[in-house]
């Protein structure tokens, strides 16, 4: 699963054989046409359609689609929905920070400190939970965090006060960090693996403290991995539905849940749902664009 959304790889080496291309039996459209058509039909056009739908206030199935204004978007900017967006954003940022803080030492240990022959196995073992149903993993956290659950039974043994966090934001954060930590470790691992240990040794010889060499060498050297991992976790957690839905409560509405409710839930406002989706697509694209720009400048420095 190493390949989740790496930066676009530019196939430079193959571009250099224009003569061979002429000899090939298949034209570019025969190769690129069918998959392109599939994406256009089932992704690009649908996105255009929800954009059009987002311009129809209060539309529900069976209504006539007649784009007539930005009402849906102005509705989003009511304070209550701004709060929902802010909450989603905070969940995503929180998850990213938690995964980075918890994931970095683990990735560092697997990539650089564990015995070489175990490394692949250790990595696989860490990301193995990703292979189970994400719904069941969230559900397991319900059993752990509920008032009469595993955590409180455990705390009870030591006469510690019970923790009541299910149906609140901390529970969502726990579930999301747990779900997406393996992605972070995976990406950090592949960038830490290439870290030049000699640099660290040299720094130590020159009298740098471990903290200094961490900030001056380890972090800059693995910056690409940190950025890519953070972006990936940020994107996935921004769009996550399962954890907020199952672990959250009456006061942890997120954008994904709100969108879901407009289509398959108790309220049916397809126009409002579409405009929320457009905002989400826009936010994620902005995050990616930011990374591409920022990522390039930093790689120039190194």
């Amino acid at each position, binding site marked *: 699963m190493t390949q989740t959304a790496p930066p676009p790889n530019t196939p430079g080496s193959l571009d250099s054989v224009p003569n061979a291309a002429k000899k090939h039996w298949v034209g570019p459209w025969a190769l690129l046409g069918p998959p392109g058509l599939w994406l256009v039909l089932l992704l690009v056009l649908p996105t255009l359609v929800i954009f059009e739908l987002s311009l129809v206030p209060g539309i529900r199935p069976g209504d006539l689609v007649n784009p007539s204004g930005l009402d849906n978007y102005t509705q989003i900017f009511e304070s209550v929905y701004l709060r929902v967006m802010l909450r989603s954003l905070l969940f995503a940022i929180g998850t990213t920070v938690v995964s980075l803080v918890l994931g970095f030492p683990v990735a560092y240990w697997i990539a650089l400190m564990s015995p070489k022959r175990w490394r692949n196995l250790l990595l696989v073992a860490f990301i193995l939970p990703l292979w189970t149903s994400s719904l069941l993993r969230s559900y397991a956290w319900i059993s752990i965090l509920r008032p009469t659950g595993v955590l409180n039974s455990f705390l009870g043994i030591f006469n510690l006060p019970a923790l009541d966090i*299910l149906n*609140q934001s901390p529970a969502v954060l726990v579930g999301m960090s747990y779900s997406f930590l393996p992605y972070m470790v995976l990406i950090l691992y592949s960038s830490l693996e290439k870290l030049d240990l000699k640099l660290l040794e040299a720094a130590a010889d020159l009298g740098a403290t471990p903290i200094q060499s961490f900030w001056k060498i380890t972090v800059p050297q693995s910056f690409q991995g940190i950025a890519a991992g953070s972006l990936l976790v940020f994107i996935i957690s921004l769009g996550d539905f399962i954890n907020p839905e199952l672990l959250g409560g009456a*006061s942890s509405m997120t954008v994904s849940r709100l969108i879901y409710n407009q289509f398959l839930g108790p309220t049916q406002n397809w126009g409002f749902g579409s405009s929320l989706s457009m905002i989400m697509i826009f936010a994620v694209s902005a995050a990616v664009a930011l990374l591409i720009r920022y990522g390039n400048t930093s790689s120039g420095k190194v």
Partner: protein
Amino acid sequence: MAGGSYSRRAFLQQTAAAAMGLSLSSCGWRLANVRPTNTASADTSKLYIFTWAGYTDKALLEQFTAETGVSVVVDIYDSNEAMLAKLQSGGGGAYSIVYPSDYMVRRMRDLDLLQELDRDRISGLDSLFEPYQDPSYDPNNRHSVPVSWGTTGLVYNRKSLGTEPQDWDFLWDQREKLTRRMTLMNDTRETMGASLRRLGFSYNAEDPEAIRKAFEALQELKPFLANFTTDAWRDRIVAGDLSVAMGYSVDAVGVESENPDLGYVIPASGASLWTDTMAIPVTAPNPDAAHAWIDFMLRPDVAASVTKSLSFATPSRDAFELLPPDISENPSLFPPDDVLAKCEGLAPVGASTALYERYWNQLTSG
């Protein structure tokens, strides 16, 4: 080869142009116009049913299959609105039976989503109790047949509360003590309705002022709620994580049998009285089996046995008479008339639907 790829490109451009034209034409198009699918697999050996959780069980389906040779596939939903959404978005083409509640029957009938029933193929319609013979939501049961009825009230754990709630007010009065130990339903009309009723309005209020007041009252309660959920409270109240939950009477009877500390009350200021029905969508691919199913479910022995095993409240007099006294005298399932007199059925609220939904979105988002 060049010709081939050129025509492919042309095809691509044409398709794109056609689709763009569709989506950007100024005259507008109709979103999700549900039509009957004539091509739908005319497989008469299968019956697809769309119903509430806990409305069928394995034994029931096996009995039907044994009698008719038709195998049954059941999908479930948790609110009338979710069911309607699925049908309207074209995801319900295979269903021959749906279980809309009273007000939803009316709404679906107005949207031309329901078939008129062939009464000759359904026996047992005359054995329904008087009020169900000619219900206001569907005169003469032309499009739907009642299958179960009940109320919406409060399920509570008398041990952890130390008292028995009597009215909706209990939630508001005790809210600090009940922090994250109570749930309300994830259902616009039921939850808004309960709040309306507590303030002395009708469940079907269309006065914007009344709706706003009900919304504000719920807003006050919200920080203390564990969740809005129609189904997910059952496990958790049995396990003792919750103290009070708003729920349907049929679910309440189910959990009462699993934990003796649990009780059910119909709030004194009144609750909603609902009827769930069986109906056949216009798109139904297998209306024959659908009629057979309705006929089967109305049979007194079947209706009585599901009343026992799934804690339905049957609207059939013949079935009611077959019930053992401990069920027919269970006040949660069959409340006395004076309690029922305070209850009120939901009715479509027409243009106010959008207002209800707007407030609901605000309530659940804040």
